[in-house]
């Protein structure tokens, strides 16, 4: 998986300064668009919020960037951002607080999140061994895919 596919967390202390009068709050996620993806812009935003929730880069209580912040950043139609946020609200993932902004209300991170660091470290050790055994990236991917498919109890394909 390429890291560029994932939403980039934006640190709270980045000191983001917007135009006077637009009232920016520090944001926790930065959206990016792929106009060639064929996926509607609002869906790309919805997906990037969900991805960040799954990965735990944003969590309950975090504020999403305001519509104006996203518009100023991406030069897109504000209605598109509002639509994405409405969709997330309908899914119960965020709540809009009048005059204050949109806040994360639920998480999609699986309970196993706490094990991720440990599993990742083990995977990295395994990758080192695979590399030492002469496997290139494609062979490694093929092996992982084949193993996932070959184990009946796996739900991921």
């Amino acid at each position, binding site marked *: 998986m390429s890291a560029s596919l994932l939403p980039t967390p934006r640190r709270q202390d980045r000191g983001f300064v917007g*135009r*006077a*009068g*637009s009232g920016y709050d520090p944001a926790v996620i930065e959206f990016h*668009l792929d*106009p060639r993806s*064929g996926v*509607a*812009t609002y869906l790309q935003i919805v997906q990037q919020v969900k991805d960040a929730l799954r990965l735990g880069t944003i969590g309950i209580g975090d504020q999403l960037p305001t*519509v*104006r912040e996203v*518009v*100023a950043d991406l*030069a*897109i*139609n*504000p*209605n*598109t951002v509002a639509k994405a946020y409405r969709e997330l609200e309908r899914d119960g993932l965020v709540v809009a607080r009048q005059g204050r902004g949109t806040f994360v209300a639920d998480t999609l991170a699986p309970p196993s999140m706490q094990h991720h660091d440990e599993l990742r470290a083990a995977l990295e050790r395994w990758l080192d061994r695979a590399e030492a055994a002469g496997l290139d990236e494609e062979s490694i991917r093929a092996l992982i895919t084949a193993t996932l498919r070959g184990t009946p109890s796996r739900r991921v394909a």
Partner: protein
Amino acid sequence: MSGAPLVADGLGKRYGRDWGLRDCTLTIPDGAIVGLTGANAAGKSTLLALATGLLAPSEGSVSVLGRDPLRDPSVLADVGFVAQGAPLYRSFSVAETIEFVRRTNSGWDDEIVPDLLTRISSRAKVGSLSEGERARLALGLVLGKRPRLVLLDEPFASLDPLAGRELLQLLMDHVAETAATVVIASHVIADIERVCDHIVLLTGGGVRLESNVEVLLDSHRLLTGPRRPLGSIRGVREIVRERHSGRQLTLLVVTDGPIVDPSWTVEPVGLEDLLLAYMAPERLPTPRTSEKVPLRWHG
């Protein structure tokens, strides 16, 4: 008085013997960001000139914000219009230009323009500005009126991609703040695709297509399959364009249900390809070619 931002009813404009716009009937919904597109000379500028009272209709009627721009020009205080090439007095300085617009427009917002023009010297002559700076100045002057309807004629025509993006950012920020309705005339679909939620396509002076973008994309599909005599296809309401290659048939269709026939590959179609298909002649002639040589059509 309220009313839809822009309504045309049987609107037409004749230049001598030729019609610049004919039988144009449309309603622009409130708060929409509209891409007004079509080939050159399709009638885009004529429509905008009629909407701003710069031209009088030869037939039919146009109203903006519920009023007739010719008979009731006071409505234009709520309309911001930037003509093609952002024409401004070249011998004025930037400060003089701003002062001129400030004095000739009621409801001027002093906050907006300086904010937009931080990177342009107020003493510079308008004639010495780059295309990007002039476009920015012209848009700033228009947004300073805090218009409810913004009409832009080919605003990106002479801008580099960065200046174009900056212009869009200014415009979208204004929309986020004021919920204004925007009509952008552009023959380059890629320039407007990013922001438009509504499309008006003019061809040969008439309205060929007017729709919400999402509805448009949802209702169109590209079908590819082996060449065959065409009967009716379940799920297809209308064939917009048909292209043959040696053994292959490609159809752009309007759907009215799922297309279940497995001999067709069904794909969504992008806005640019969709609009180009409507701009092109309805049916292209079958290329004469031997059945043995597969021929592929590009674009």
